[in-house]
């Protein structure tokens, strides 16, 4: 008899260590080590005000990282995340500035209007990205890289690089610096987005289709998945989440700025990859990305506390990313063995 090929995969079935690695074990380990080490070296880390600060930074990294995850699990990349954050910050502040000139008494309505405008811009960018990627089958990497350049150009052109002030005061105190139940409002927003992503990934057909499209586009299409539509939704949601980040950052900074988000493309890809999102698409979970974003927020804070030069911070981020990539590759090799 020929060897029974059906018997083979049993050996491949993940060992306990594999399971641990697959279930986000690496991120959890990274996170615990980072938290414990920081707390030991610099007790000020555990200071309440500092922790709130970490939470806020975490929230503002988590939302665009989830955006990045959506696109990456669908088999793409979104390098335009940071540029969308910048342009939506400019849009938010500009709408508010102009709006409050006409209707000085309707602050809340104007804040909502600026939110809608910013998210609309984000959705439009996402739709354009998806259109170019899906219908012309261009490389997502190049499309979003070009889009990043276009958006940054537009934002700089309109603002000349000068921050737009005149943002509603209640917007700054109520959203950006506001707290609810002792935690920053932005954290609440980020957690709602996170839960939305988890539910979408696990319990909806859309979530499943995003994984399918990212894992094997041809097979997904043959199975009757509307691949173009699925890609469009992933990119549009990503654009909207990036725009939401821009809106929240504006409320935190108190002005619309065309220069923010410059490092977000790298940071969000780092968070996604450390959180186990595959560079080849089809794999990745929101909760693990959240742990990775928290890990990055903690080490950034730790470096600030011990006053590491910002130049070295960039270096550390790059090094951490390389380690994460190496682990991703080793896991893949294991899977193909």
């Amino acid at each position, binding site marked *: 008899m020929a060897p029974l090929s059906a018997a083979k995969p049993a050996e491949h079935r993940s060992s306990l260590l594999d399971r641990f690695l697959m279930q986000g074990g690496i991120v959890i380990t990274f996170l615990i080590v980072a938290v414990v080490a920081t707390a030991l070296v610099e007790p000020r880390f555990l200071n309440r005000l500092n922790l709130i600060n970490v939470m806020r930074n975490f929230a503002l990294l988590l939302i665009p990282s989830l955006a990045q995850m959506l696109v990456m699990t669908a088999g793409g990349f979104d390098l335009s995340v940071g540029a969308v954050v910048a342009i939506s910050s400019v849009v938010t502040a500009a709408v508010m500035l102009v709006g409050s000139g006409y209707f000085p008494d309707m602050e809340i309505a104007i804040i909502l209007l600026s939110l809608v405008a910013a998210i609309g811009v984000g959705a439009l960018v996402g739709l354009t990205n998806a259109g170019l990627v899906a219908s012309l089958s261009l490389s997502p990497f190049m499309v979003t890289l070009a889009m990043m350049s276009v958006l940054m150009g537009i934002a700089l052109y309109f603002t000349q690089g000068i921050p737009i002030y005149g943002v509603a005061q209640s917007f700054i105190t109520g959203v950006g610096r506001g707290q609810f139940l002792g935690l920053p409002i932005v954290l609440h927003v980020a957690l709602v987005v996170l839960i939305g992503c988890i539910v979408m990934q696990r319990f909806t*057909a859309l979530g499943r289709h995003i994984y399918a499209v990212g894992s094997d586009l041809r097979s997904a299409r043959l199975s009757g998945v509307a691949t173009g539509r699925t890609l469009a939704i992933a990119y549009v949601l990503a654009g909207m989440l990036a725009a939401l980040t821009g809106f929240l950052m504006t409320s935190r900074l108190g002005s619309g700025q065309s220069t923010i988000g410059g490092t977000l493309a790298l940071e969000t890809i780092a968070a996604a990859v450390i959180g186990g999102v595959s560079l080849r698409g089809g794999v990745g979970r929101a909760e693990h990305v959240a742990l990775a974003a928290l890990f990055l927020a903690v080490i950034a804070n730790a470096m600030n506390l011990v006053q590491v030069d910002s130049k070295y911070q960039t270096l550390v981020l790059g090094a951490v990313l390389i380690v994460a990539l190496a682990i991703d590759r080793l896991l893949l090799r294991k899977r193909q063995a």
Partner: protein
Amino acid sequence: MLQGFCDEMLEVTGFTKRFRGIAALDNVDFSLNEGEVHALLGENGAGKSTLINLIAGTFPWAEGVYRINGRTITSLTPQVAQEIGIAAVFQEFSLVPDLTVLENIFLGREQSGSLFLKRRQMRQAGTELLDGLGFHLPLDEKVAFLSRAQKQMVEIAKALRMRPKVLILDEPTASLTDGEADKLFHAVALLKGRGVGIIYVSHRMSEIRNLSDRVTVLRGGKRIGTVVTSEISDEGLIEMMVGRPVEQLFPSIEHRPGAARLEVRDLTTQDRSVIGASFVARAGEVVGLAGLVGCGRSELCRAVFGLETVEAGTITVGDKTVARPSPASMLASKVCYFPADRGSEGLAMARSARENATMSSLDLPALSAGPVLKFWREREVIKAPLADLALRPMAPERKVSAFSGGNQQKLMLARGLMRPFDVYLFDEPTVGIDVGAKVDVYNLIKSLVEAGASVVVSTSELPELINLASRVYVMHEGKVVAELGQSELTEAQILSHYFGGRA
């Protein structure tokens, strides 16, 4: 017209399809009855896959009439085909590796409420579907971790999720072991009993004989005939398929065994795919390596060429023993190897035929002066070998991927003809190529041997062993279990050793 119930549920007439002006399918008729297994038989390139792809709606037909249940259809997409009850299981799967078995079965057809998936309901339905087929699969395992046989089962279950009336199976047993194939046959019988019509594409005579009610034979895009399976012999079917009696495919080779050119003693590979194998190949003869797929004959060839790690044993080429075989040292010892997997081990698909032909010969004085290539000579140098192999079309600048399988194979063989070798190792030289190209390959082997080279052919095709080789070694589970001389080379003799038994 017929009254009421229509027994003939699928009928196509005058089907024609052209690719870039070349007819892949030429005026073919085909019909399928309820509860019938209708086999499609033909060489590669005969038009089988074109026909089933047209029926499944993968691409549109150019001419012809398509009727299902008496209704005429003018156009079809894969989605529409599924909805009207036509499901296909192609050799290339439509499974997503990162989703689980269950998720794949319902992919694109998820049962869902207004917002959330009905996960329990799908699990129930998926379990029933698999149980009904007698397939035992881990529902929550990612498809990437399954064996090819298990993937095949998932693919079949997936095809049946819509309760199709017509099921197309494209060489479903190509990668299954006997036990797994039995499960598949059982499922086919089950579906047939439920009135599903099955179009069954296969090369294997025994399957066609056991499963099918009728056989349609295609050759060169034309329908050669449709016959009731029980009314024709295997030989008759083969003759319909290849268009001439089997014996005429092979040239008569004059073997003049001389000195031993390649001698392998007690070779064992590190992964134990070859265990203590020994064989001798002499100048002026063709030595066959026989055995089931996975018996170790491919690995033996690869090990000789330094592609598998050798743990024990010796390899002697001519009169010197090669201590550490590597492709470079074996080529230097004038041993040439042609791999079975042209795509991943043999050819650079995106590069031209010319570059591929000269790839391993760029160190020849004819082609280089130190580090500088004599690129102006390259075009001249390749002319003769490509002409010997009858490359079609003779377009050396064309990308390899644009050639047919048979001609890609010839390009790989051309590499071995750029300079003379003493020993040629062929691993499955005719897998996936058409009859014409096969004959060209056989003629090449003949000319090499008659010029005094030693040729080793590892193949699953019994007729090749019988008609080309002067001696055959049969392998089973990594060991050489028999050596047969020319007088003993019959199908029955060779097969009797396939399962390790002694004749």
